[in-house]
């Protein structure tokens, strides 16, 4: 049981980001660290991501999601980190007092000097797509089905239609096929898949599951249980072509249509959010608009690879330790503007006095493109960009000092094909 309610660092969220952050703090210095997790086990989404392909960057080998998770759980248990499971954080106030609600101890107040938010993300649901039709059962988000199948041990149905070609959708197409379901097809609204290329190869092509790009679900049929969907082609402006509609029978519809960073808690303490990432606005140290509160993981921006989440967790941990040492962020930040061909950039603002790792999310696929930093006079050639893969570009601090005058407090980043 956790007795001392005063901490130096409280990490909220026990997924890969939070575990990495808590472990790194405890590894580097003797501090009072607390890790708070809502579920009954650590790992966040990892225990249900039973497929392999994790860990190439961090561990130098290919691991299954639960293995990656277990290595961090084993590590954290050896370190001096307090863990609260089954505990939900309700709010954070200006003095960084955290109110939690847990099954064992009820409602408690925890005091801390700094906070790392690693809150994860949520799946977009039918409600956010406005699919017309009836409201039967049998419509699930892909991650919910992943949990049902891989942790709880239930199958959602037999004849499956998947809308959206995000990675979880592709992986569930394979998983459900292996469990004996009939996956009728994966339908993607955009003219390209939003998942990793290798997942299209190993999850769809290996099992002859068809992928239809520029297609979407335009109607749902069925009263108690879903009976069919109407599939329509879409035109260049993503509008359904009426004449192309056809009815496809199914008993389950999986939605893999995007993830939204979870920041209800961040809002309770007035942290400023970026409307592009839906995550907090951060600087290169991953400090949010509130001093002493840092962000990492999928609540900051939606990552493609868990290895990157771990690395961001390390950055947040080291920044929190710097903060405890009395280091202060500058007030006059240089703003970063995501320009042409770019969905978003993290960090959204930089101090200009240290090296910066830019995480750039391309807005659409392009070949032989240039990534240009206006105001910095920096350009990088890339063979191929794809919305499914973040582009990482490191800029040395000298580059900012050199360009201090011309950039006038704003650096724009564009991808030009």
């Amino acid at each position, binding site marked *: 049981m956790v007795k001392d309610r005063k901490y130096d660092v409280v990490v909220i969220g026990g997924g890969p980001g939070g575990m990495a952050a808590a472990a790194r703090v405890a590894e580097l210095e003797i501090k009072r660290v607390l890790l708070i997790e809502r579920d009954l086990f650590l790992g966040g989404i990892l225990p249900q991501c*039973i*497929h392999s392909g994790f860990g190439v960057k961090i561990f130098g080998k290919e691991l299954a999601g639960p293995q990656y998770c277990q290595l961090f759980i084993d590590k954290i248990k050896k370190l001096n980190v307090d863990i609260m499971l089954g505990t939900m954080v309700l709010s954070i106030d200006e003095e960084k007092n955290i109110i939690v609600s847990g099954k064992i101890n009820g409602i408690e107040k925890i005091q801390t000097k700094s906070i790392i938010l690693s809150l994860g993300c949520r799946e977009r649901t039918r409600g956010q797509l406005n699919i017309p039709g009836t409201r039967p059962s049998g419509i699930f988000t892909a991650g919910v089905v992943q949990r049902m199948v891989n942790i709880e041990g239930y199958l959602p149905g037999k004849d499956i239609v998947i809308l959206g070609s995000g990675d979880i959708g592709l992986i569930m197409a394979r998983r459900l096929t292996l469990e004996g379901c009939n996956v009728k097809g994966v339908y993607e609204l955009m003219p390209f898949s939003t998942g990793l290329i*290798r997942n299209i*190869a190993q999850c769809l092509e*290996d099992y002859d599951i068809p992928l239809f790009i520029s297609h979407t679900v335009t109607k749902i049929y069925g009263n108690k249980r879903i009976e069919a969907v109407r599939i329509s082609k879409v035109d260049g402006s993503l509008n359904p072509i009426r004449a192309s509609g056809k009815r496809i029978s199914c008993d389950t519809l999986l939605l893999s249509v995007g993830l939204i960073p979870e920041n209800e808690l961040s809002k309770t303490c007035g942290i400023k959010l970026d409307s592009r990432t839906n995550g907090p606005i951060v600087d290169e140290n991953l400090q949010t608009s509130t001093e002493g509160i840092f962000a990492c993981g999928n609540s900051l921006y939606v990552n493609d690879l868990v290895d990157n989440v771990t690395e961001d967790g390390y950055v947040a941990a080291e920044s929190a330790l710097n903060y405890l040492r009395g280091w202060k962020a500058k007030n006059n930040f240089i703003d970063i503007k995501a320009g042409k061909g770019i969905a978003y950039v993290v960090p959204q603002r930089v101090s200009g006095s240290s090296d910066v790792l830019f995480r750039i999310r391309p807005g659409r696929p392009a070949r032989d493109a240039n990534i240009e930093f206006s105001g910095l006079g920096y350009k990088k050639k890339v063979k191929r960009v794809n919305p499914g893969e973040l582009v990482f570009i490191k800029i040395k601090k000298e580059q900012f000092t050199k360009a201090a005058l011309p950039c006038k407090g704003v650096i724009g980043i564009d991808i030009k094909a």
Partner: protein
Amino acid sequence: MSEKKITCITCPLGCNLKINIENNKIVSITGNQCKKGIKFAEGEIKDPRRILTTTIKLKAQGRKEAAFNRLPVRSVAPAPKDKILEIIKEVRKIKVSTPVKMGDIIVKNIIGSGVDIIASMSVGN
């Protein structure tokens, strides 16, 4: 001579590989960005293999472990691609009880494929 186009699945880059084949022998491999691509392409022609992951029934002894009804398992090394469905069918018959440790061998040399099935995670203690 025939040309085969495949996607390298070794890492998230997903290189598009072109393999030129003549008399069942690889003449050239292009499109790769590292050595792993060559190895993968050779494997795809001679003996295609995939990592296999699935879950098996888990009987929990303690209340805390009851959060998991299934234990995630995997093949230690890639298994022959054409045997995957057969292996999955066989693995499905197995039940285990907690405690289980990551790396515990669940089945050795499953259906004579030369590949072991191990636990991907520890549950209990």
